[in-house]
Structure formats: structure tokens, C-alpha cells
């Protein structure tokens, strides 16, 4: 029987192949399962999975499209499997980062010891457009600023997980983690049962527990604040509110009366105690931030400051997940926790440092250059994939505004078998993947990491950009129980 798998084009580290010939023991069952299905079998499963996503309305909106068309987030049938041993490292590393960055945020909005001690340059924090003056001196419950975090990880040629970036403002995608597993359970429960996979569907409960811990009122009312149905992540907002039994509100549903936030209901006003923010801080309160915002709630920051409502995540977290601050995160971990970072970061050159800038300008073709203030994969230059003209143009932009860029050596992201067409054949071919685990933090600073996460995959051959807005797809991520027959990546 001819295999529907091919290792052609695999990165130096592939999740499923130990070498071009050798399938890792961990993946052998999965390979057998799909080989038995054959091309037609996989195609038909893929079709029913896609249809199920579309019917469920598990879609996101593409902005560049004039009509705001809904698309499903392409879902790949081949799961990404992670051993308990590998996961332990990820989990401990994510907890460590969340704790350190929470301490960092509480510090920069209060005493700023880390700046006074010269660990992080004062300008890096205070000159950042993401520093939120309104948060200065404000005391969120427990001193916790990051209640929900998503940490993007990659595996490079070494096979070790590295941190690519932190998402401490509105990390999205967790609904796909849960939906992917549901779809998996529906279309290929057989394979799922062959592995001992840790469940992920208790995430809403984790989130809810963390949110209600933030309020000192009995039976606090929790609301999820969404910009509305036209937001690309609306499905997720609705999903999480639904799963938590919380109210999904828009700015127009809330009003602030004498520093208390209320929802407008058919029976009058009802108090809101905890708000899970899914809108950008800029739009949150026209009195405090952008005055032209129609999405926000006038006066909500005053209510927050008065301690009558809790906002999660706290506004102003951007200063800690800034792409330039990322370079300082190992130092931040050492400074607050007196520990060595568990997850390494990727060497990062800052445009704001003169020596780094010179290096960036001279070696643009070997670097990935990112603007510090954009997300979603927009405005990124991958040096090796750029044309001469693009490089020249970028060099001008970089020189004109060096503070806005950082650069990193191009990483050989690990690859994973993915159902695509390559050279005219349908089959499982290696494609680059990353991993975003999700963590929640309660009022006591206790961080819990969901055993799973979003594995994003770049569906185009050779592409390193995995963002959904740039043609990426996702995979179900299986974290195995410790007692599952284990093979380490030796």
C-alpha cells in the first residue's frame, strides 16, 4: 500500500518524523490510522469536518473582503501530539512567564522598581504608546493584571520550545481549541480513543472560576464585552459567554451610574461586577481613551478605579507584551522570581539600540523584522522570502523609524504532517506549525494552563506565517496523560 504521507520538505525538526525515513513512535498509530483511510477516506472526513464547522457557525470574518465574508478557520484532521514530558516544560514555562509579567505590570504601574534598578530602560516602558497612564496607581484585585494569557511558542531546529511572543491583552483562539476537539470527537473518535488525551473542554469553567475570584461580592455578575457581531472573533466571544453562562454585552448595553456599572435589561438596570474585556483598551472608555469610540462605555474606568467593577484583562497590559519588551523578558523573570527562564526566547535585535540597528540594516535578508505595534501577522518582513525591492523599501522604513521595529534570526519552525495538495498530489505533507497554550490566573496569582492549545499551521508550502488572517489553519492539539506509553524526542 502506498502511504499518503510524505516527509518531503520537512524542517530540520519535524513533529512526526525523527528523520526522513523514521516515524516517531508517538505518531505511528496515527500514521497507520490515516493510511488505512486512504485519500478518499480522509477527503470525506475533511469534508464533514468543514461542513460541521460551517453549520455550527465556527467562522471568522475577513476584513480585507468588502462584504466581510465569513470563512471557516481551516481545520486539519491530523492532530498534533505532545507527550506529557514535553508538556511539563511548556506548562512550567508558561506559569513562570505569567507570574513574572504580572509582577512586572504591577510594578510599572506603581513603584517602577525595575526601571529604577535599570533592568528595563525607562524609555522602553514610559515612551511606549502601550503604556496606559490611566492605570498608574490603580489597584486591581490581588495586584493581578493578566488574567488570561496566550503564549505563542515555536520549536526550532533544536526541537526545544521557544517563546515567540506573549499575548496579554485579548488572546483569541481558545474557542477553536475546544471546537476542534468536539469536531475531532465527532469525525474520528476512533483515533482519539487510541491515545490517552487530556481534555480541554473545561476551559470555560477555569476562566469562570478565575473571573469570579476577582470580585468580593456574592454571586458576582460576569459579562463578556464584545465590540459586536462584525468583529472577527465574535464567534469566540459568544462561545465563551455561552459556555460560562455569562452575559454577552456590547458597549451600548452598559451604563455607569455613580461609578457603578449596570446592564440595561428588560426589567431595568442590573449591576455588573466582572467584565471580561474582548475590546481593545483604546475603545473601552471614550472619557479616558479615544473620545470617538462608539463601542465603549463612558465612565467605566472611573468605576474600575473606584473598585466597583473588575476588568479582565486589565487595561495597559500591552506594555508587557510589546515585541520590544520581549527582549527583556528573561531579565524580568530573573528579577522578580529569582529563577532562570524555563522557556528560552529567540535572540532579538531592537531597532532602538544602535548596535542592533546596524546589524539589522546589514543583515535584513537573514532576519524576520516585525513592527512592535501590530499583531495578526501584519507588516512582517521575512527577509529570505522578500524581493530586492521589498528589502530596499523596508530598509528605508526601518532607518526612518527604528524604534518601531525588532528583528529576529529566521527560525526553522518545526513542521507537521498536514493534509494539503503538493506537487499535484493530495496527502499529508510537512507544514510549519506553532503552538499557543492558554493560561488563566486567579486573584491569588495561581496560574492554570489548559492542557492543549491552538496549533496553527501555515498551509502554504514553505510559509512561516501561521496567522489565520494570512492563510493559516489549525490543528487539534493532543496533550497525553503521563502514563500513556511514552517516547521522548531523543
Amino acid at each position, binding site marked *: 500500500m502506498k502511504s499518503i504521507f510524505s516527509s518531503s520538505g520537512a524542517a530540520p525538526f519535524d513533529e512526526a518524523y525523527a528523520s526522513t525515513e523514521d516515524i516517531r513512535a508517538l505518531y505511528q498509530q496515527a500514521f497507520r490510522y490515516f493510511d488505512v483511510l486512504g485519500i478518499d477516506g480522509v477527503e470525506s472526513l475533511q469534508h464533514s469536518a468543514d461542513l460541521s464547522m460551517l453549520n*455550527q*457557525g465556527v467562522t471568522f470574518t475577513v476584513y480585507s473582503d468588502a462584504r466581510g465574508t465569513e470563512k471557516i478557520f481551516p481545520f486539519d484532521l491530523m492532530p498534533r501530539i505532545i507527550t506529557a514530558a514535553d508538556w511539563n516544560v511548556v506548562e512550567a514555562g508558561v506559569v513562570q512567564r505569567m507570574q513574572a509579567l504580572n509582577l512586572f505590570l504591577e510594578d510599572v504601574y506603581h513603584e517602577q522598581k525595575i526601571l529604577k534598578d535599570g533592568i528595563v530602560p525607562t524609555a522602553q516602558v514610559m515612551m511606549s504608546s502601550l503604556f496606559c497612564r490611566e492605570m498608574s496607581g490603580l489597584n486591581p484585585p490581588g495586584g493581578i493584571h493578566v488574567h488570561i494569557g496566550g503564549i505563542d511558542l515555536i520549536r526550532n531546529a533544536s526541537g526545544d520550545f521557544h517563546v515567540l511572543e506573549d499575548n496579554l491583552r485579548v488572546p483569541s483562539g481558545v474557542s477553536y481549541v475546544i471546537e476542534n476537539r468536539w469536531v475531532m470527537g465527532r469525525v474520528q473518535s476512533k483515533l482519539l480513543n487510541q491515545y490517552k488525551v487530556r481534555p480541554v473542554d473545561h476551559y470555560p469553567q477555569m476562566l469562570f472560576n478565575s473571573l469570579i475570584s476577582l470580585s468580593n461580592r456574592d454571586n458576582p455578575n460576569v459579562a463578556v464585552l464584545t465590540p459586536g457581531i462584525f468583529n472577527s472573533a465574535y464567534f469566540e466571544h459568544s462561545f465563551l459567554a*455561552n459556555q460560562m453562562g455569562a452575559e454577552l454585552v456590547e458597549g*451600548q448595553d452598559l451604563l455607569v451610574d455613580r461609578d457603578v456599572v449596570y*446592564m*440595561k*435589561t428588560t426589567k431595568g438596570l442590573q449591576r455588573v461586577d466582572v467584565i471580561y474585556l474582548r475590546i481593545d483598551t483604546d475603545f473601552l472608555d471614550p472619557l479616558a481613551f479615544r473620545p470617538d469610540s462608539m463601542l465603549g462605555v463612558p465612565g467605566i474606568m472611573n468605576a474600575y478605579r473606584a473598585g466597583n467593577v473588575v476588568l479582565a484583562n486589565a487595561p495597559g497590559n500591552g506594555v508587557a507584551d510589546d515585541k520590544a519588551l520581549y527582549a527583556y523578558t528573561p531579565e524580568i523573570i530573573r528579577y522578580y522570581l529569582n529563577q532562570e527562564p524555563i522557556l528560552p526566547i529567540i535572540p532579538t535585535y531592537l531597532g532602538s539600540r544602535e548596535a542592533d540597528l546596524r546589524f539589522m540594516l546589514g543583515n535584513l535578508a537573514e532576519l524576520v523584522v516585525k513592527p512592535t505595534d501590530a499583531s495578526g501577522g501584519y507588516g512582517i518582513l521575512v527577509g529570505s522570502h522578500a524581493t530586492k525591492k521589498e528589502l530596499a523599501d523596508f530598509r528605508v522604513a526601518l532607518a526612518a523609524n527604528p524604534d518601531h521595529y525588532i528583528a529576529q534570526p529566521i527560525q526553522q519552525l518545526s513542521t507537521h504532517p498536514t493534509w494539503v495538495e503538493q506537487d499535484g498530489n493530495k496527502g499529508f505533507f510537512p507544514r510549519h506549525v506553532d503552538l499557543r497554550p492558554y493560561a488563566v490566573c486567579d486573584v491569588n496569582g495561581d496560574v492554570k494552563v489548559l492542557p492543549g492549545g491552538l496549533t496553527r499551521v501555515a498551509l502554504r508550502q514553505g510559509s512561516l506565517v501561521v496567522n489565520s488572517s494570512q492563510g493559516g489553519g489549525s490543528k487539534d492539539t493532543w496533550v497525553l496523560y503521563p502514563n500513556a506509553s511514552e517516547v521522548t524526542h531523543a
Partner: protein
Amino acid sequence: MLSRIARNIYELGQQIERAENIARILDVNRRMSLEQGYFSELDVWSPMLAITRSREAFDTVYDEVTEQNVMAFLIADTEHPYSIRFCLNEAREMARTVRERISEEMWLYLNRMYHDIQLPGKTDRHDAFLIDIRQFCSAFHGLVDNTMSHGESWNFLRLGVGLERAQMTTRILEIKYHLLLPSADEIGKPLDYHQWQALLRSVSGYEAYRRQYRARIDPAMVLRLLNLDPRFPRSVHFSIKQVSRALKSIGTVNKTQYMLLRETEYFLNDLRGGAALEQMQTMGLKDYLESVQERCDRIAEMIDLSFFNSVTVTLTDANRNLISVQIPQQQQV
């Protein structure tokens, strides 16, 4: 419940009901135009535009009133509020905003239908499409009643359905005065008879009528069935009874809500007792239907004011007493 959510659920019910009734209206016409061979000068398509309040919008898109154009407009136009496609798109949009309030089955069914009608050519086969829509809407109501908890959300949905149905049933009855007979001599003749029968069938009322009033089709009895019958589910009386029940289940906590309930009860009383019958006889059909529509409009306005578009806030008056004041919510931008 959030006012916005309540409004969206109400509109979800309204849009589904409207889509179904447009399909029913187009169906009356299809049935009536079967007889058109004898009376080719009879314009049966302009009345469709009149009762769906579509003439002006139609004229901006089409030059000529033909079967093809009117059908295409009322079925597939994407902007006109009285096109079936528009109603279903709206309904699905509303459902998306209230997904956590409706059942999974309702959402799946509506979302599938939505994706289905976006397929090219889907709305081209008018007859088949109209049948599909009627079946879809009926099945949707079945899901509403059987898979959704009969709580506040369900009652707001029922409120939207009931009020829209009362209005649309009177619109369907309007057909008879828009669709003029070739001459007064035709009253009571086969063509007239045929039209009443087509009308009854389009509201699924033919069997109900026959069982109650036997084979002879008497216009007065048809009007009585579709307006005053307390048991026929598409009659005005039945629909307003649903509105009243929904309002009572939702409950009243302030004055405007109480005024709304009172207005509805007065209306229901008129339909239940002899007042409506008397009006129907003295006012004539056209004026009577207009008065029913006005009452429905007033109830719709009051629903908007008492549930969706005002909040009560506490203020201190000159003597430092706390008083409750009802203020309109900010206008949506």
C-alpha cells in the same frame, strides 16, 4: 435579560414570520393567477407590491411590473425589508447575536438554510423555493417550541411572531380589495369564489373553514375565521392572544410595561367580544383592516419603548428624595 438581546430575539421571530408570510402572499397570487387565462387584463402583481409596501422600492430597481420581476424582487432582493432573502439574512444575523439564548438545533437549522440560499441559482426556481421557505419556517417554529426552554427568551420570540402574524394576516386579506374583480357582476361568481378559496388555502385555512362553515365560501365567514376565530392559529384573534400571553409571562415591572399590557388586553377584548365584528360590519373591510394594523403598530411602538428602548434610573429630586425616572436609551448609531 439585556434589552438588546430581547429585541434581537423578538426581531428573530418577526423576520421568520415575515418571510413565511411573504411566501404565503406570493402563493395566493400563484393560485389566483391560475385563473388568469379568462381575465388576462387582470393585474395580479401590482397588488403584491401594494400589500408588501414595496412599490416605491420596486420602481427604483425595475421598470415593469411583471411576474418575473415581482417574484425576483420579493424573493431574492438583498436590501428590501420585505424580500424573503432579506428577512432570512436578518433572522440569521439576529440569531448570531443571541446564539446563547436559542437552542443549538434552531441555530443549526437556520444557519444551514442561510448558507443554502446563498448558493447560486437557489432562489431561481420560485415555486420550489416558496415551498421550501414555508416548510423551513414551520419546522423552525416546531424547533422553537420543542427545543427551547419556554422562558423569557421564548416569550420574546413568541411576541415577535404573534404581532407580525396578526399584521401579515390582515395584509393577506388586503389582497381582496386590491385585486379588483373585472366588474361588480363577478361578486359571488366563480372567479370571486376562486379568489377567496385561494386566499384561504394560502393561510392554510381551507380545511379549518370547511370544517367550521361547510363547503360554501362566504366572504363574511372567511373574514370571521381569519380575524376573530380564537382557535385558528393564523387569525388575528389567535395571534393577539399569543402576544398577550407572552407579555403576561414576561411580566410587568414598570408603568410603560403595564400600559402596554392594558392596550393589548383591550384589543384582545374587542376581538373576543362582539366589538370587532361590529366594527367589521360598519367600517367596511378596508377601514377595518387599517384600524387593526394601526392597533398592532401602536402595540409594536409600546413594546419598543417599554422593553427595548428605555431605562429607569434613580435620580434625586429637589427635596433630595430618590425618584425613578424612565429615560430613552441612547439612539443606536
